[in-house]
């Protein structure tokens, strides 16, 4: 995947836009802002990374984008129209275009349900209730083969019988069946080993290229963000301190926080520079 082969997705029509999005917890003196008046604009087919350390508000932001958490303030525009998820039916409609992969594959599945039912849910959500058994089986087989899994071996098994990498790939198979417009991936590779990580990232890129999916990739690993994304948003204490094209942000960082994040990445053949690490009282 060379740099030149990448099509420029950053100029596409706006897909998801946030204006002054805020979420606070607590009241009075204890009030703290997890996400503090952030603005963003994600385009169709864009691979966006949101980078920040633990506690910077990435997960709160992702929950608001998914509609699992209501913002305290601000607005989200979905395809340039205010997002309306006031009823269950509207939420269902929204979730047809907005899906997620979570960080911990072991916690993402209901341990009482078989793999088949996870995939069948997706087919039903796309309106495939009335398909024949064989058609459903074919769709599930296709989705599994997309992520290099054999459905025939998985059917009638429970998710916890798979390895972490296989479970996360099954999550992607789910996305393949749903084909949403936007995929929010919340640190999908942090709990799997290095080999599986590359496969999973490759599959995400493939989804983007084949389906034209917008991918919002949430990570704490700025190196990974550079390797994979078109646009990078750097988040610190609930605010975006810097954003722009991946090359510009990472090769010429302007914010001190970005510089620190970059220098914190351990590199092979080089001594690890720990001079920028702040020893705060929290540690």
């Amino acid at each position: 995947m060379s740099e030149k082969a990448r099509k420029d997705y950053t100029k596409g029509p706006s897909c998801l836009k946030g204006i002054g999005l805020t979420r606070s917890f607590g009241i009075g003196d204890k009030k703290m802002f997890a996400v503090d008046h952030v603005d963003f604009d994600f385009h169709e087919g864009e691979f966006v990374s949101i980078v920040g350390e633990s506690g910077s508000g990435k997960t709160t932001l992702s929950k608001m984008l998914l509609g699992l958490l209501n913002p305290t303030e601000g607005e989200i525009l979905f395809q340039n129209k205010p997002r309306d998820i006031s009823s269950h039916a509207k939420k269902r409609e929204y979730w047809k275009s907005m899906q997620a992969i979570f960080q911990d594959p072991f916690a993402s599945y209901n341990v009482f349900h078989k793999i088949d039912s996870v995939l069948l849910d997706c087919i039903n959500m796309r309106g495939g209730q009335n398909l024949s058994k064989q058609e459903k089986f074919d769709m599930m087989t296709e989705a599994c083969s997309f992520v290099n899994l054999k459905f025939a071996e998985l059917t009638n098994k429970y998710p916890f019988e798979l390895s972490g990498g296989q479970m996360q790939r099954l999550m992607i198979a789910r996305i393949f069946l749903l084909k949403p417009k936007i995929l929010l991936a919340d640190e999908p590779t942090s709990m799997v080993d290095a080999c599986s990580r590359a496969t999973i990232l490759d599959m995400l890129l493939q989804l983007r290229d084949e389906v034209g999916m917008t991918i919002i990739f949430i990570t704490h690993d700025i190196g990974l963000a550079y390797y994979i994304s078109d646009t990078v948003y750097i988040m610190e204490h609930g605010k975006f301190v810097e954003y722009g094209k991946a090359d510009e942000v990472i090769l010429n960082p302007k914010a001190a926080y970005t510089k620190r994040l970059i220098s914190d990445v351990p590199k092979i053949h080089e001594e690890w520079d720990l001079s920028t690490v702040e020893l705060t009282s929290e540690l």
Partner: protein
Amino acid sequence: MKNTLKNIFHSPRFVVGFIIFVALLLTMIFYPIFNPGDPLERIGVGTFAKPGTYFSMYDATSAKTETFRLADAEENRINALLTGDARTRMIDWMSRHGDDVAGLDPADTGALMEAWGRYYEDVRLSGMTNADRVYFRRLNNSIVNSATAEELLVMEEDPETGDYAQKGTISLTDYVNTKDVANVKTLPLGTDNFGRDTLRELVSAAGVSLRVGLIAGIVATLIGLSLGLLAGYLGGVADDIIMFITNIFTVIPSFVLLILISYSISQEARGASLVAVVIGFTGWTWTCRSVRSQVISLRNRDHVNLSKLSGHSMVRIVLTDILPYIASYVVMAFILQVSAGILSEAQLSMLGLGPKTTETPTLGLMMNWAMLYSAHTNGSWWAYFPVILTITLISFSLNLMNTGLDQVFNPTLRD
């Protein structure tokens, strides 16, 4: 599921509790088949007949007799005559007149009789109160009679003339086989204050009490579970309102509430099932609180979020993504509620606020009756001790099963 069951039955505590519980349950089911009839039938006229086998004396006089000459027959007869109280009084009196009696063992009938023969003849009845004199004279007469009497006459009264005719004689050496007596009744736990067969009553009472516990447990668990699920999953204002109500019920001692409610229902309307429902209505708070806290920790898990993203309705998420995760906990809470329900019923009945007393016995009512008729002061242990033992066994087995389940479902608690 199969694996879980296997694990549960490998827990020794659960198995012991389960065996005790099943044994009690089987007794409750099968005993009435072998001993049918109304458990509250009053078979005796007096109160508190001792445990043992009773046979009709009338029938025994006409039964076929055998003659046995048993060496210890006379001693046994005197033994049965002398109570422990009489023996100590005899030794006490004799030791005032001689030194060799002080160390006498009251249980040694032979030595006691030998000494009594010497002292009673020698000292006679000098220096004692009139009451004592009468007592010892009567005691001596019965001892002497039992040794010398040859035969008892059995007479029959002619209803027309009023004359007595000899029907037969009973000699000291006559014995009757209990199988030849027409009417024999074995009462393993005697009779209670109303002359009812205590064992039959106890078995029936344990069944009713268990039913009360089950109904109370089901009611309490259902209320606690549904309120806890709602409060935990919905959060926000709904949570505040439900927790407000729960806290009110928690701070008011549920037993006081129970007494007030039971008191306000009239005695006529207070059946066992109604009392059970009332107990259930006052005991749900802890189930509600703990279910709520478990649901709160579950509702932000990724699998619930994923289920939401798959467009599932709230009811479906609660039933399929949350309830199965807390099911084991709910089962354990239910077992404890059953046990608490049985104890609450017993407490209420002890105060006379239990189910109405005329139709069904419960364990609490049996204790209440025993207490009212002072079974504990007149030594009728069979009227209350087996009841206490049954209550203890039921709650012991239920709690043991609960601990066993806890060990299986929370492996970190294993020691």
